[in-house]
């Protein structure tokens, strides 16, 4: 599954350069231009990492504290692209929960290396811990295991990724385009019907446990609700 980076930056040229470099490295990138949209998007899509340019942050400390205080968002690493060399600003932002603070000017290769290092570390930890539950369905990420009504369900890798994303973002409607990009990648040549086919297989394999949990939201996409 492709990892997703949320980039919150109003500097169009810098955003384009960072975006291009991240896409080359195989990441999916979503870009927004304000703190408000950044925090809204973080909650909606729960990216693997969020990169905020300090220039768009009305209050960087408050923004980091807000994310770290929300149990659903607290594990999302935050990198702040600083706009000052003042150490006290950096310390204040790191203290508020940012995982990294890069002094200006931003070196894109260094930013990419830092994103990779943080995600490598998070993945080492995440796979150990993550068990998601929803109704009668339980998904264990580390063991690549799904149980429905206490019975093991054998899923193909893409079906597993699909269920993982939907369960991870429980109660959010995920569009077919989002799921296609995230699981199959930008360069996949198939269309969104691929997602429908996999959802159908998923429902069949989960049986009655899927019930109303895996919902189709007409014209929007799919959603897992309890």
């Amino acid at each position: 599954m492709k990892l997703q980076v949320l980039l919150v930056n109003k500097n169009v040229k810098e955003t384009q350069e960072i975006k291009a470099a991240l896409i080359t490295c195989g990441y999916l990138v979503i870009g927004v231009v304000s703190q408000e949209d950044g925090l809204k998007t973080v909650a909606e899509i729960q990216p693997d990492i969020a990169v905020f340019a300090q220039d768009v942050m009305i209050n960087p400390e408050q923004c980091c504290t807000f994310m770290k205080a929300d149990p659903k968002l607290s594990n999302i690493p935050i990198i702040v692209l600083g706009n000052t060399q003042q150490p006290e600003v950096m310390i204040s932002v790191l203290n508020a929960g940012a995982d990294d603070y890069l002094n200006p000017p931003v070196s894109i290769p260094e930013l990419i290396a830092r994103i990779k290092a943080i995600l490598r570390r998070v993945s080492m930890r995440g796979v150990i811990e993550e068990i998601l539950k929803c109704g009668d369905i339980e998904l264990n990420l580390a063991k690549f295991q799904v149980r429905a009504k206490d019975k093991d369900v054998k899923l193909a890798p893409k079906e597993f990724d699909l269920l993982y994303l939907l369960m991870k973002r429980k109660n959010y409607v995920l569009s077919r385009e989002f799921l296609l990009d995230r699981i199959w990648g930008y360069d996949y040549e198939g269309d969104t019907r691929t997602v429908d086919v996999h959802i159908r297989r998923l429902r069949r394999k989960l049986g009655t446990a899927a019930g109303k949990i895996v919902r189709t939201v007409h014209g929007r996409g799919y959603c897992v609700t309890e």
Partner: protein
Amino acid sequence: MAENKVVKILIVDDDPNMRDTLTDVLELDGFVVKSAASGKEGLEKLKAENPTMLILDLQLPDIAGLELCQIIRKDPEFAAIPILMLTGRFIQADDKVSGLDLGADEYLVKPVNPPELVLRIKNLLRRCGVV
């Protein structure tokens, strides 16, 4: 350090002043600190002391810091140990990228700002699930 868990940090740096300064800063914050003056000694102490994390100087007299980082990451016993790399002021940007690509989790340029060092260590340990 607010947490009760003992965090042992191994510093590998050939500069005795830097080792002493870092030791003072980290001990003040409640960390247990061990140190080594070369790459070879660092590897020996890594096995003997089993530290929670490593602070590694890039320029060591015997084994280069980048090479040492690679050696440690290839050892299954220490593949996941958090590593913070320290370098001199006139480091090339490419070296930073190489250090992170070769397995360092953090990268700081000397002279180190003590509060920043402590915060970055705590944030790293949090990310690693240590504290």
